[in-house]
């Protein structure tokens, strides 16, 4: 406003400039001019001064009117104490990136905050909090509103998930520390309905209202929603491997999910996954998924990027996935029924399923590259139960106990240690298995690594034969390969099996028989995973190895077990980064590189793992590790983590008028909609002041007419 009022000097400057920059005319009729000049000199000066003052007043009044001033105090009818303690909660979540005809919602919000700051009187205290999980407060409470306004201009790009509840509670704490009078709380946000879900519970509303009007310290709450009610948005919801981890030189499927948050059908949307282009069609408010086969020729950490050409928000049109590409998985099969006749023991079937090329080469008597496991997802080592020792666990990632009759206590202890360090154990009992040994050494009354207590096998005569019927979750990494198949439940008959009783804590049935008994049970211990399959891996007890389900199932289960120690690479903001690896790994040194920074920060290594929890900012985090690393990590020693903006931010469905009304009543706020009223004026009205802009505009019009009339009259044009 000051700048505008200073603009009133412009006519004066122009007047002086025009005086100093006159033009010269060679004139003949000086005799008429001389008389005129002599007579009008005094009045001319007066008239010039009057016109000049009129013009200056016109500009000054216009500038004042545009600033929407408010009359307060004695003549404004108002507030006894105009000094205010204000906390402004600014929604800095990712949805504020939405472009509203050339201006982002964040820019509109910033303007609204500036309006609020302008409405505060001198010596008012203000603070701006970022209403996002990932942003810290902009400043401490301050009376230097000018500086606060300037700092608003340097805000980082909005990102992450809105946390209005946390911000509001924090705001009230700040107000409580600031005194009991003039407490004002502003929320400047977009119209996104999902922002308010956490605040809409009856319990919260009740406690909030109580705090808002508590003990003589009434707080006025204003909500200022900026932006439009547009809700059309197409977003990449997820990018992930169907069966992690990816194995070098093996085809892995990457699944990309695209969600349409709008209410119109979106056909033939261009989607690109790395260098593969395709189209996808998504119905209104639904998700479409695409599986893209990919082959990684080098082991190590890699990134897969998917992008689409969408509308609405831009941040969710592109998504990265951090993927570990590992060397072929080393599987140790401890076989309790090793025979010389082909396809008679469990290990034969496992070899074929896990390393088909090697198995084929062995059948041909080939000892070349194929026999060494080239091109297979796993390297399988088979050891008869009576000949295996604990040393062999050091190089294995997954151990399969295939129809092993019993274990020695030392072996059980070694296996326990193996699992705790991150190894994967698959227990597949058979006709030779003595369940009491397993129960006593591995189940250990629910305290061991076995997730279920095995009961004696069903009748040998097949009278309790059953089929594989229920898979509890097709989104489980082991069974994801079944998704999209027309007949996802395999036609498998199981003649005998071991009924099992689940350990209470974390055991989970992943699949079950028609009899209702568990077929596959998952558990975890330490960093590792344990699977118990309650029937045999060979064809002695059923048709499982003969079905087309067997090979992908076994490969998928082994991959899942092998990825046990690998922590999640794709995170939500605030989730800690954890880098830990399986047996035989020893980390010595680690550094992390965070988004928007090229600086590598050192991280401590604690008990063989590295943690980093400052992941508020979405983007790529890169860990560089030194020490004894797994084979797949040795080449570069780098692991990627991608922190993704929560998909809830992509849902920009606005609150309806009725919902605003309900929230306003429930939380006790006054809604100031910039689309309908001026922010400064509405705040002033709420405080009891009078807006002056209307009167000032009228004054501008009157002055304008006056100036025109006077100028016309005195310039003689009217005559």
């Amino acid at each position: 406003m000051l700048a505008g009022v200073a603009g009133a000097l412009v006519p004066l400057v122009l007047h002086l400039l025009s005086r100093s920059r006159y033009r010269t005319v060679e004139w003949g009729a000086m005799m008429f001019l001389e008389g005129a000049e002599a007579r009008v000199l005094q009045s001319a000066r007066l008239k010039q001064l009057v016109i000049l003052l009129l013009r200056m007043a016109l500009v000054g009044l216009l500038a004042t009117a545009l600033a929407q001033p408010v009359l307060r105090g004695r003549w404004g009818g108002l507030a006894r104490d105009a000094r205010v303690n204000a906390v402004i909660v600014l929604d800095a979540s990712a949805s504020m990136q939405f472009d509203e005809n050339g201006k982002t919602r964040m820019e509109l919000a910033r303007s609204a905050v500036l309006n609020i700051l302008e409405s505060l009187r001198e010596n008012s205290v203000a603070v701006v909090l970022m209403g996002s999980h990932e942003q810290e407060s902009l400043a401490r409470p301050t009376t230097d509103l000018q500086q606060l306004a300037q700092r608003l201009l340097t805000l980082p790009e909005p990102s992450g998930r809105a946390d209005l509840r946390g911000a509001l509670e924090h705001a009230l704490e700040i107000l409580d520390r600031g005194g009991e009078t003039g407490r004002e709380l502003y929320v400047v946000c977009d119209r996104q309905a999902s922002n308010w879900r956490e605040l809409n519970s009856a319990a919260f509303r009740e406690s909030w209202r109580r705090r808002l009007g508590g003990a003589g310290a009434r707080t006025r709450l204003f909500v200022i929603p900026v932006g439009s009610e547009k809700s059309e948005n197409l977003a990449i919801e997820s990018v992930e491997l169907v069966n992690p981890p990816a194995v070098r030189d093996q085809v892995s499927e990457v699944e990309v999910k695209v969600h349409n948050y709008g209410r119109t059908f979106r056909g033939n949307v261009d989607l690109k996954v790395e260098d593969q282009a395709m189209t996808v069609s998504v119905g209104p408010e639904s998700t479409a998924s695409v599986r893209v086969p990919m082959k990684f020729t080098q082991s190590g950490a890699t990134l897969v990027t998917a992008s689409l050409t969408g509308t609405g928000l831009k941040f969710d049109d592109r998504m990265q996935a951090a993927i570990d590409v590992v060397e072929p998985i080393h599987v140790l099969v401890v076989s309790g029924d090793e025979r010389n006749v082909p396809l008679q023991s469990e290990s034969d079937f496992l070899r074929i399923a896990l390393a088909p090329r090697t198995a084929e080469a062995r059948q041909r008597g080939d000892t070349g590259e194929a026999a060494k496991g080239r091109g297979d997802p796993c390297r399988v080592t088979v050891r008869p139960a009576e000949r295996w020792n604990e040393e062999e666990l050091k190089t294995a990632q997954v151990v399969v106990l295939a129809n092993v009759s019993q274990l020695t206590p030392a072996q059980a202890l070694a296996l326990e240690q193996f699992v705790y360090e991150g190894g994967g154990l698959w227990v597949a009992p058979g006709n030779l298995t003595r369940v009491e040994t397993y129960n006593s050494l591995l189940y250990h009354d629910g305290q061991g690594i076995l997730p279920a207590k095995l009961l004696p096998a069903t009748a040998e005569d097949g009278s309790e034969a059953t089929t594989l019927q229920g898979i509890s979750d097709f989104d489980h990494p082991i069974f994801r390969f079944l998704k999209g198949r027309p007949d996802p439940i395999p036609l498998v008959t199981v003649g005998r099996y071991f009924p099992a009783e689940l350990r209470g804590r974390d055991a989970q049935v992943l699949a079950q028989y028609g009899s209702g008994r568990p077929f596959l049970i998952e558990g975890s211990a330490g960093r590792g995973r344990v699977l118990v399959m309650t029937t045999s891996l060979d064809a002695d007890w059923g048709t499982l190895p003969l079905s087309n389900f067997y090979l992908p199932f076994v490969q998928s289960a082994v991959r899942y077990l092998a990825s046990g120690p690998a922590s999640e690479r794709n995170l939500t903001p605030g989730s800690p980064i954890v880098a830990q690896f399986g047996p035989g790994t020893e980390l010595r040194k680690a550094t992390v590189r965070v988004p928007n920074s090229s600086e590598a920060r050192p991280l401590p290594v604690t008990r063989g793992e590295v943690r980093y929890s400052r992941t508020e900012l979405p983007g790529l985090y890169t860990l560089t590790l030194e020490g004894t690393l797994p084979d797949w990590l040795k080449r570069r020693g780098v692991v990627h983590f991608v922190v993704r903006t929560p998909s809830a931010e992509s849902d920009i469905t606005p609150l309806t008028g009725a919902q605003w009304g309900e929230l306003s009543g429930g939380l006790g706020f006054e809604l100031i909609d910039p689309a309908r009223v001026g922010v400064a004026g509405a705040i002033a009205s709420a405080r009891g002041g009078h807006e002056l802009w209307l009167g000032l505009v009228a004054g501008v019009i009157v002055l304008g007419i006056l100036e025109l009339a006077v100028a016309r009259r005195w310039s003689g044009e009217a005559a």
Partner: protein
Amino acid sequence: MSVVSRYLEPALVERLNHLQLSARSVVEGTTIGSHRSPVKGASIEFRQHRAYVAGDEPRRLDWRVLGRTDRPYIKEYDEETNLRCILALDCSGSMAYGEGNKWGSKFDYAARLAVSLAYLMLGQTESVGLCLFQEKIIHWLAPHTGTAQLSRVVEGIEKVVPKGGSQVAKAIHETAERLERRALVVLISDFMTPASAFREGVAHLRHDRHEVLALRVLDRDEIDFPFRNWTRFRGLEGERPSLCEPSLVRQTYRENQARHARQLEEAGRALRAELRTFVTDKSLTEALPAFLHHRLAR
């Protein structure tokens, strides 16, 4: 001829050929013309008989009356003479205003007006003279007839550049003194001089029984005063410069200008001298014939 044609537009010449400028009062000429002369002498129109006195020319005797009555009588005729006209053109600095304008300067306009009148009257076999004046007469061309006189008029105008101050009254007095016989005096000027001086000069001419035709030439700017923004007016006749905001002096200027015009008209009316104003934005081809028509119609 090319110099003459600069001052005479073909369209104007075409129109002037059908018009004439005549004196309203009796003038004295040297040759037989269309204007009635107060000098009686040998001519073709009989006026009266009078008794012969010694010294009269014997050839003027009316021998028929002498034979019939035996008394000598002299025959008197009204002398038919041509018009003597002096074109007095103001060459002061103020007449230079308008140079570079679309219509040209006032002097250009006045010069074309003078040459046009000279052409018109010489075509009527009148005698035409030229008087160029500033603060005093700077060029005098005695009245004479014949087409060669037009070239002399143009040559006289060609040589002069409008500059310096003007003393209209003084110039008129000088003109009056140089005129021996009654004549038509055409004053062409902007008359940027006090009306009293104009009155004084014209009174002198009228006293000597000359007919006076005052043709005032003005630029449109001098009437409307259309200037905007701060302007420094520098006098073309050496007056003190004046810096002013035109919008603030416009009204007074116009009032002064109108008052002066009114005073000139009053002076002209009182002294029976016709005053006519020409504005340079109006083509001479239109304005001069209109004036002549108007004059003939009166």
